[in-house]
C-alpha cells in the first residue's frame, strides 16, 4: 500500500499543470472563482471546453473509442485534482457524466455517433428532465406522458428543477409511456430537442438570486421515436444507471479542497479581520480539513478498487452524503468570518461582469451566495435523507 504517485504519474501531473498554466487565462480564472452556482455559466465554460477539446481532455472518464483520453483511474484523479486546485471552470456534467455514459451503454449506434461528438465539442448542451412537481425523491411516481402517434411521441406534462434548461438545446427525460402496476415499468427514456414547439421554460429563482433551475412545460411536444433510448417502458433502467453515475462517478474532494483553500485564504486576510487568529476559526478550519482528508482517502480507496477492476460497491451514497455536508461546512465558516459584510445582498449576476464597485470587496462578494446556494447540496441529487435510506438498505441490509 502506498499513497505516493509513481514517476509516470508525476510526469502526467506535470503535463496537466503545464496545460492549465498555458490555457487558463487570468480572466477566466477570476470569472470561475466568482462563480457561485453549482455549475459554471456557459460563457465561462465555453472557452475552457474548447481548450480541453483541442487536447482531447473533455471527458476524462470516456473510453478512447468515444473520444475519451483512455486514462487510468489515477490519471483521472490527478486531472480532476489539478483542475480543481487551479480553479478551472467546471464543465457541465449533464452531457459528459450523465447522458454520455447512458448513450454508451443503452444508445443505438446512430445515437452514439450523432450525440457523443457533439457533447465533447460543446455543440450540444444538455439538461436533465427527471423531477416533477409531485415527484421529487419519489421519482417513479412521475406523470409527464409520452403517447406514441406514428413515428412520434407526443409529450405533455412538466419537469421541474431543470438545471440550465435555459442554456440547453437538448434534454434527456424520463416520461410515462404506459400505466403499469409497478410504476417503474411504464417509464421510458427520451431525448428531446429544446427547440421543439410546445416547450416553455419558467425560471425558478434561488434564494441567492441565482437563476440555475427552471420548470419546463410540454404542451403537445413531438419527439421522434428514434429519440427513444433503450426499450419503451424500460427507461427506469437507464435512469437508475445515470443516477448511480451522478452519485458515485464524481470525485469531490479536490473541489472541496479548492473551496476550503479559498476560505482559508480569506481567514488569512484582512477581509476577515484575519480570522485565522481566532482559535475557534483556526480549529474549525482544521476540522474541515480533516473531513476533506478523510473523504479524499475514501475516494482514493474507491479509485484503487476501480483500478484493480473491482466494483467499489454502494459507497457512492456515503461519498455524496459527506461531500455535501462538508461543502456546507466550508461555506458556513466563510459566512462566519466575513462578519457584518454578510449583511450586503448582491443579487446581480454574473458577479464577474459587475460594472460598478460593489459595497464589499470582490473576494467577500461570493461568500453569502455560495452559502445560500450550498443549502441545495444536501437536497439536490438525492437528499441526505434519501442517502441514509440507501445506506441502511443497500449497505447495511436493513
Amino acid at each position, binding site marked *: 500500500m502506498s499513497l505516493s504517485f509513481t514517476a509516470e504519474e508525476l510526469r502526467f501531473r506535470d503535463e496537466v499543470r503545464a496545460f492549465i498554466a498555458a490555457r487558463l487565462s487570468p480572466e477566466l480564472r477570476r470569472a470561475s472563482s466568482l462563480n457561485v452556482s453549482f455549475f459554471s455559466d456557459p460563457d465561462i465554460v465555453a472557452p475552457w471546453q474548447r481548450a480541453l477539446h483541442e487536447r482531447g481532455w473533455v471527458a476524462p472518464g470516456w473510453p478512447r473509442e468515444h473520444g475519451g483520453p483512455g486514462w487510468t483511474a489515477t490519471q483521472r484523479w490527478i486531472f480532476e485534482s489539478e483542475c480543481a486546485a487551479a480553479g478551472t471552470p467546471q464543465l457541465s456534467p449533464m452531457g459528459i457524466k450523465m447522458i454520455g455514459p447512458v448513450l454508451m451503454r443503452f444508445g443505438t449506434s446512430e445515437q452514439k455517433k450523432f450525440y457523443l461528438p457533439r457533447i465533447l465539442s460543446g455543440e450540444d448542451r444538455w439538461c436533465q428532465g427527471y423531477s416533477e412537481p409531485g415527484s421529487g*425523491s*419519489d421519482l417513479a411516481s412521475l406523470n409527464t406522458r409520452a403517447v406514441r402517434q406514428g413515428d412520434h411521441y407526443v409529450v405533455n406534462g412538466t419537469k421541474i428543477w431543470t438545471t440550465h434548461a435555459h442554456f440547453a438545446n437538448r434534454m434527456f427525460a424520463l416520461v410515462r409511456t404506459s400505466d403499469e402496476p409497478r410504476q417503474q415499468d411504464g417509464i421510458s427514456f427520451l431525448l428531446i430537442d429544446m427547440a421543439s414547439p410546445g416547450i416553455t421554460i419558467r425560471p425558478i429563482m434561488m*434564494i441567492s438570486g441565482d437563476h440555475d433551475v427552471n420548470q419546463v412545460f410540454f404542451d403537445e411536444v413531438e419527439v421522434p421515436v428514434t429519440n427513444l433510448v433503450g426499450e419503451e417502458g424500460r427507461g427506469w433502467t437507464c435512469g437508475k444507471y445515470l443516477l448511480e453515475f451522478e452519485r458515485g462517478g464524481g470525485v469531490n474532494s479536490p473541489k472541496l479542497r479548492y473551496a476550503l483553500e479559498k476560505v482559508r485564504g480569506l481567514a488569512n486576510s484582512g477581509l476577515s479581520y484575519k480570522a485565522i487568529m*481566532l482559535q475557534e476559526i483556526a480549529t474549525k478550519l482544521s476540522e474541515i480539513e480533516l473531513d476533506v482528508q478523510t473523504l479524499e482517502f475514501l475516494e482514493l480507496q474507491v479509485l484503487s478498487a476501480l483500478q484493480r477492476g473491482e466494483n467499489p460497491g454502494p459507497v457512492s451514497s456515503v461519498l455524496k452524503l459527506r461531500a455535501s455536508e462538508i461543502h456546507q461546512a466550508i461555506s458556513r465558516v466563510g459566512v462566519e468570518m466575513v*462578519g457584518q459584510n454578510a449583511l450586503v*445582498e448582491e443579487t446581480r449576476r454574473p458577479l464577474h461582469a459587475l460594472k460598478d464597485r460593489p459595497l464589499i470587496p470582490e473576494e467577500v462578494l461570493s461568500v453569502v451566495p455560495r452559502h*445560500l446556494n450550498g443549502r441545495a447540496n*444536501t*437536497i439536490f441529487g438525492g437528499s441526505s*435523507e434519501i442517502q441514509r435510506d440507501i445506506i441502511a438498505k443497500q449497505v447495511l441490509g436493513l
Partner: protein
Amino acid sequence: MDLTPSEAQQMLRHSAQRFIAERCEPTARRHAMQDPMGFKRENWRKFADLGWLGLPFPEEVGGFGGGPVEVGILMEEFGRGLATEPYLSTVLLAGALVAECGTEEQQKGLLPAIINGERLLSFAHYESDARAGLSEVHTVAQRDSHGWTLYGRKIAVLDAVAADVHLVSARLPGAQGAGLALFLVPKDAAGVTLRDAPRLGGGRVAELTFDHARLVPDARLGTGADVLPTVQSIVDRAIVALSAEAAGMMRSMFDATLDYTKVRKQFGRPLAANQVIRHRLADMYVECEEARAMAARAALLVAADIDSTQRSLAASGAKVKIGRCARNVAEQAVQLHGAMGVTDELDLGLYFKRLLVFEALFGSVDHHLQRHAELFGNSRAE
C-alpha cells in the same frame, strides 16, 4: 417570581399581531422590500399611531416608558412577520442613544420627532477593520472654532438611506485621549457620501464616508463623557431585542415547515409520516421554545436592575443560545422543504437570510460565546 404577562403586555402583543397580519402578509412585505427605502413610509406612520415609536422612551419626553420586555414582545412579532421597518436603527439604537446621552435640548429636538414618526435616524459605528469589539473606532472628529470636522468610513450602517440624521461615533484626538463621542450628522451635510445596497433578507445597508465633513458646534451628542459604556449598554439591549425577533422568525419557519411536511407527499404519504422527519420537527420545536425562553429571560433580566456584567452576560448568552438554535431551525426548515426550500418562491429564504443577519449583527455567536466565558469566569472568580 411570576412569568405571567400583564394585560398591557398582552394587548401590545395583540396589536402587533394584528399589524403583522394586515400589513406584513407576503405580498405586502415583498412590495415593501422593493421600496428604495426598504420599507413603506405609511407603515412607519402606523407605528407612530400605535405608539410603538415612543414605546421605550421615558414619559417625560413623550414616550410610554416601556422596557425590554415590551420591546421584546414587539420584536418577536416583527420577527414572525419579517417586518422591514427601521425600528432597530431609529428607535432602539440611535433613539436610545439620544435618550441616554443627549443634552436636554438635543432630546427635545429629536425624540418627539422620532416618536411621531417624522424623523428617522441611523447609527453609524462599525468600521471595516473592526471585528466585533465596540471600541475599535478610527473615525476622527476635529474641533475648531467653527464646529467639528469628521474623517472616516463606517460600514454596515443599517437603513441609513432612509435616515434624516446619522448618529456617528468618532474619536477625539488630543486631550480627551481614548474617549469616544457621538455626532449628529444631517444626511445632506457636506463631505458625507452614502453608498446604499439591499440588506440580506430585507431592509437596506450602507457605507458612509466622511471626508472633511463639516458639522455645527452642537453636533456632538451630550456633554462630553466617554460614550463607549453607553454604546455597549445600548448594543447589549439591541442584541436582546434582536433575540426576540430571531425567536419570532424561527417560529414562523417552524410553523411553515410543520405545515409543509403534513401536506407534501412523497412515496404516497405525507413527509411528516417519516419518523426521521417527525423527530427533527420535535427537535426544531424544542429549539423554538428554548429560543423564546432565552429571549424572554434576557429581556426580564435587562429590565431588572442588574449590573453591566450581568447585562452583558444576558445579551451574549441570548445571542449564543438563540444563534445556535436559529441556525439549526433555519437549516432544517430549508432542508425539510426540499428543493422548494432553496427557491425564492417561498418566503422561507427571506427568513433564512434574516437569521443570517441576526448571526452577523453585533458580533458572531463565537465572539459572544468567548465574551460570555470571559465575563462568566470573571464574575464567578470574585
